[in-house]
Structure formats: C-alpha cells, structure tokens
C-alpha cells in the first residue's frame, strides 16, 4: 500500500479527532503506528507521493484552525510527514514521527499565534463558521454576479412561461395535500437552474429577503439545489423569477 496515496489515511484522520489541529497531528500518530505495526515489512513498504486528496484534506484542516497561510501550512506538514516517514524506515529507533509531530505542532502555533484564532475556533468554531458562510453567500448573491448589460427577451419569456406552469402545479398540489415534489416539478426546476447557469445573474435585493426565506433562497436559488417540498419550491420559484439574468455570451458582450 502506498500510504500517502491511500483513502484509508484520510478516513483515519477524519475519525481521529474533533478538532482540525487534532486531525492534522493525527497524521504523524497514524504513520508512526503504521510503520511500527507487526505486519509491516521493510521490503514491502512504499510510501508513495502525497496525493492531492491528502494535501487538500490537510488544507481544509489548516483553514479550519485559522492558519495565516493555510496552503503553506498544509504543504509543509505533509512534506515533514513524508521526510519523517522515510527517516523512520531507515532509522526506526529515532522515533522521527514523534519528533515530526512536535515540529508540526510548533508550525501550527507559528501560523496562529498572531491571530489567536486556533484557540477561539476550538471553543466556537461552529458558530464562526456558520456566520461566515451565510455572510459569504449573501455577499456572493449581491455582488459576485456583475451588473447585467442587456436583457434577453427570449429568456424572460421562457422564465415567465415556466412560472405559469409551476403556479398551476403549486395550486394543484396544495389542493391534494401532497407536499412531495413530482418528477415534472424537479425537471422544470433543473431547467431553470440550467438556464441561470448560462447567463450572468444578479439580484441585489437578496439582502432584504425575510429571514425565514433566506435559507431557501441560498440553498435552492443560489446553491442550485432542488427544494424538498412544494412550499419551498414556490418560495424558491418566487425568488428565482426575481433574479435578473443576462444571457449574452461573455465574449459577445465584451466585444461591443
């Protein structure tokens, strides 16, 4: 097994700790144990090059713990783990992975001591993360879509048509007390998402959406995820219609 390139390693890391720091440092414990396992034979061991999933997993943890330069921290930690594992194969008695763990710990400290984020995040990272995520989504909704340059009559007509059909569906379904989505509803919704994707869309009023609708808007309009019930679908549809899209291909618009 090439351990640095195995999904098993990432699974073990994910299970190892509740904190991002703990998961990063577990890399050294797991490698240490793995290289000391009785079944381990020096002749058969190949470490392999660190896979992209492993580096990305470490990057995710480095971001969560609030590192100043998460890319560098993840890269440096994986390099140290690899060098230490090689060292451990040549000199098992050096306990190089235990020492490497201390180095990684010092690096994490070096990358967080100015902000003190690591300590804060340990206590309330769920809250921080939630707030940051929703803020980002709102900013994204309001600002990332650049102002439209031109209306497309065709697109508007299509959206309006789809809206009429969906309204009928909503009314029918409400009468039947059936809140589940039909295949037709789903395919219509997907068609709208697909259409949105082809244009440049904006909806600055998103910032004024009532709180109870925000999650639906973010998930089912911005996120492009299909609503799970018909009430949400009608809300999502309502906002979907408000989003203004410019379907002029980027290159054409730019050449004017």
């Amino acid at each position: 097994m090439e351990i640095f390139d195995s999904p098993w390693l990432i699974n073990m890391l994910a299970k190892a700790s509740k904190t991002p720091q703990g998961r990063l440092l577990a890399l050294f414990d797991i490698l240490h144990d793995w290289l000391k396992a009785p079944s381990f034979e020096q002749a058969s061991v190949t470490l392999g090059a660190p896979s992209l999933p492993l580096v990305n997993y470490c990057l995710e943890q480095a971001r969560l713990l609030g590192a100043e330069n998460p890319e560098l921290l993840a890269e440096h930690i994986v390099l140290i783990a690899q060098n230490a594992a090689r060292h451990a194969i040549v000199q098992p008695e050096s306990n190089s992975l235990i020492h490497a763990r201390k180095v990684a710990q010092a690096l994490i400290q070096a990358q967080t001591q100015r902000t003190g984020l690591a300590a804060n995040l340990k206590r309330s990272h769920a809250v921080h993360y939630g707030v940051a995520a929703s803020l980002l989504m709102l900013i994204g909704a309001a600002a990332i879509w650049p102002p439209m340059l031109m209306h497309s009559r065709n697109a508007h007509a299509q959206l309006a048509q789809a809206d009429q059909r969906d309204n009928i569906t909503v009314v029918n379904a409400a009468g039947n007390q059936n809140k589940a989505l039909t295949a037709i509803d789903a395919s219509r919704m997907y068609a709208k998402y697909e259409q949105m994707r082809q244009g440049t869309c904006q909806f600055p009023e998103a910032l004024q959406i009532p709180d109870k609708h925000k999650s639906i808007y973010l998930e089912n309009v911005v996120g492009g995820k299909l609503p799970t019930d018909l009430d949400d679908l009608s809300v999502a549809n309502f906002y979907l219609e408000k989003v203004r899209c410019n379907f002029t291909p980027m290159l054409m618009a730019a050449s004017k």
Partner: protein
Amino acid sequence: MSGLREKILSTASDLFQTQGINSTGVDTIVATAGTTKMTLYKYFSSKELLILEVLKEGHQDFQTWLNNKLNANARHPAEKLQKLFDYIEEWITAPEFNGIGFIKASAEFPKEDNPVHMLSAEQSMQFQEYIKQLAHEANIQDADGLSLQLSLLFKGAAQAEQMKRGSDAIKYAKTAAKILIDGALTR
C-alpha cells in the same frame, strides 16, 4: 589548468540547480563552460563523478558560510542555536537561491543504492549532526531529538520554498524553530 576544472564545476553547479541534474547533459555543460567533452572527462571521468563533486563543493560552501556567520555573530552556544534559522533564512531568501543541493539531489536520485542518493543522505545527516553539536554545546538534554526536529523543519521549509519562491515557508519555520528551541532550553 585547475581554473578550467573550477569553471566546469561552477557551470555544472549552476545548471544542475536551475535546470535539474538529470535534465542537464554533458554537452550543455561543456558548451556553456566553453570547453570540450575531452577536457571535462579529463577532470571528471563520468557525469556521476562530476555530480558528486558539485554536491560536495556546494555543501561545503553552505556549511562554511553558516559556520562563519554563527561564529561571527553569536557568542554563547544557545545564541548560535537561536540564530541558526536567521541565517538559514538569509541563505534561502537570497535571490540566487535555487534550492539546497542535497535535498534536490536526493529527490532526483531516489534509489537508495545510487551514489548520488547516498552522498546526499550523508550530507543531510552531517547537517543534522552539526545542529546536534550546537545543541550539545547549549546544554540541551535531548540534543538528538531537537536536532532531528530542526532538521525536519529546515528540510520541509527548503522544499516548500523550492516548489514556490517567496512562499514564506522559512518565516514560519523560524518562528517554529524558536518555539522548539525555547522549549528544549527550559527543560
């Protein structure tokens, strides 16, 4: 005639550092150095011998430079240890930095029984021994442990910097080194 030998060595060193060792042919070296293959083989009987000589000289330069800097600027043994990463930073962030010879060479020659790999592994150990000596002089109990830690830290930072210039790797390594050294000194 020894001037020609030096010229070949320094040309090969530059090319190995900037283009890689394996991808630099003997033809390129002689053309750049303005000499002939025959002259090159007169001084170095094979490309491998030339590589080994370049590595030896490069490592010697690095160690001598570092040692001189530490001796000139730090009085107490503990101070030398604490300033070690300051000078490593100076070396690594210099505009002409192209990587640490023995780190690059061991990556290009991964086979354990290759003479180039063996020499670079030996140089890596020598560097760790050097740090261990500094730790000993500073009365650090676990000099073995600390020197291994600092050498892992240094290697990783040099590799990160080799992959991406201006990565700040050495900046954080310096802070981490201070944390590790301070921890070992107070124990």
